[in-house]
């Protein structure tokens, strides 16, 4: 029985179930923060964060539920922040769009497309100067490829020979717009072959395939001393924002979704575990443990107090301990 296989599955399971709890409780109108749901992206987040390890640093964006839980495994802080309570990562200042935990290596999440990409590059520069061996990774959607700062950051990282990971979590949608109206190139992978970076691409939703690829990309960045760029495809199960499906509004079909659902990353990994010797009762027990933990996190978040109004004015500038 492979511990890695189980660990990756547990990460994905926690992400999926946490979002199912969001869907359940969001209508109660207690989590007042715009949710960009990760459902469908679990394998990418779990693979990338697991490969980076606790020492690696990740820079995310507004769709970061999966990244946060994969990197921190801390649903108490996760739900605390979504409920805007003092138990949250930023005691309610950040909400869903700016989930981060710098002390656990999730450095920042920006709600403006592509904006945290250059920050990852600068952080990678600092790590290189300090020779501490820590790797930085920027995760962004395919919409980021249209932002000037993406190209600026990629170019700078290449010319400066920085070992930084660029992960494009490509769901083929920018809000509701498809690549045909956004991209003046065929594939980003082809374009990048002329940049001084290593390029990887994968359409699989198999978390272990992605984990292997990310590990290879990290090794390549370290040994070659230059950036690695990964384009990883996935399907966004829910609307751009909010907790609902949106197959009825016309820009995509349920049939398309169902096609992807056949290779849902959790289903694939669960099958693998079962064929690798895990029994149904053992898996159900692991899942139950996570269910209980998450329900407990939601309960604690709901019961926790809001920050006092006086907190508004604190921490605009650095406050020495």
């Amino acid at each position, binding site marked *: 029985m492979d511990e890695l296989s189980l660990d990756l599955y547990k990460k994905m399971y926690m992400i999926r179930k946490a979002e199912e709890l969001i869907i359940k409780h969001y209508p109660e109108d207690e989590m007042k923060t715009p949710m960009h749901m990760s459902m469908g992206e679990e394998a990418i987040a779990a693979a990338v964060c697991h490969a980076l390890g606790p020492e690696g640093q990740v820079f995310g964006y507004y769709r970061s539920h999966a990244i946060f839980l994969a990197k921190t495994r801390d649903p108490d802080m996760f739900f605390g922040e979504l409920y805007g309570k003092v138990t949250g990562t930023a005691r309610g*200042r950040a909400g869903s769009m700016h989930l981060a935990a710098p002390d656990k290596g999730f450095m920042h999440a920006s709600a403006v497309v592509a*904006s945290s990409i*250059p920050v990852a590059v600068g*952080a990678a520069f600092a790590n290189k100067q300090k020779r501490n061996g820590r790797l930085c990774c920027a995760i962004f959607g395919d919409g980021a490829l249209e932002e000037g700062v993406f190209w600026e950051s990629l170019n700078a990282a290449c010319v400066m020979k920085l070992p930084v990971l660029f992960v494009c979590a490509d769901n083929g949608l920018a809000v509701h717009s498809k690549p045909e109206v956004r991209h003046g190139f065929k594939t980003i992978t082809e374009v990048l072959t002329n940049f001084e970076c290593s390029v990887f691409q994968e359409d699989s939703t198999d978390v272990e395939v992605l984990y292997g690829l990310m590990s290879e990309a990290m090794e390549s960045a370290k040994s070659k001393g230059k950036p690695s760029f990964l384009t990883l495809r996935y399907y966004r199960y829910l609307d751009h924002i909010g907790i609902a499906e949106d197959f009825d509004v016309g820009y995509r079909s349920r049939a398309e979704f169902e096609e992807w659902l056949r290779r849902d990353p959790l289903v694939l990994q669960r099958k693998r575990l079962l064929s690798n010797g895990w029994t149904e009762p053992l898996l159900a027990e692991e899942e139950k443990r996570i269910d209980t933990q998450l329900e407990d996190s939601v309960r604690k978040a709901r019961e926790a107090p809001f920050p006092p109004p006086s907190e508004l004015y604190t*921490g605009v500038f*650095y*406050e020495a301990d």
Partner: protein
Amino acid sequence: MRRIDFCGAIREAMWQEMERDPSVFVYGIGVPTHAKIFGSVTGLTERFGPDRCFDTPISEEAMTGFGLGAAINGMRPIHIHIRVDFLLLAMNQLVNMVSSYIYSTRGQQRVPLVIRAVVGRGWGQGYQHSKSLHSYFAHIPGLKVVLPTTPRDAKGLLISAIRDDNPVVFIEHRWLYWAVDEVPEEPFTIPLGKGNILRHGKDITVIATSWMCVEAMKAADILAREGVSMEIIDPRTIAPFDDSLAVESVRKTGHCIVADNDWLDCGFSAEVAARVSEKCFGQLKSPVKRIGFAPTPCPTVRCLENEFYPNAAKIIRAVEERLKLKPIDLSKEDFYSHERRFKGPF
């Protein structure tokens, strides 16, 4: 005491901080190339190596985010822009990312990032090489904004900015680069957020920024001959802005002129006027007067540019109006002319 120019003071501050702290590094477009940012980075690459003083792609936004990333990972970056105008390309990073990062961590993470930017003027700089924009930056909570006037202030404030654990925008007027003054050789700091009384007086208060301090000093010399005693306050840091010196001075003189090296509308001069009006309401003998750029883009040709910029003569006329004095004959006065020193091109 040893005398050096403003440019040398800037260079010395960076040099001494780089000697003291290996996490300090300097970067920006064209930084190590032969022009050396008007000489303000001369010798840094040779002394500290290309990892600590280096050139970048022409990518203002990315390289600003880069500075944030390096700062949160323990470095102390100094990012240099040869013109303030170019910083507009980095406003997303400055305003959406840099200014709010510390707040997002509830004040727990340091962002020791310094952004040096030079204000251009004269010899045809025109409308994209002449802005100061300090009010833009000062409007945003989370950014500190510093505008030194004297060489001593330039050194002491820059050292403070580098040692500060928050992002600091440091705005340097190109014409001040030639100003020479006594500057201590050893490293020293001047606290951010504290103003300076450039000249003591009792009849009228002029609160001036950057180059306008030079114009105010000239105006004060001329008016002194007529028996008018002008007090000049240089805030030096406009965010956070400590208005206590200005308020104290206006309570004493009863008259207030704000001479800002910027446009007036919604600008720093309006902030000063509002605070003085609020805090000195009963003591004001005349309404606060504001002097700044004409409300137009900056033209290139000299004859129009002369109309665009405020100057010492304009300050003198404002003082006369406030104190109900007859206009002085200024036809024999020798005012500053940059062409004596600055023949371009940049």
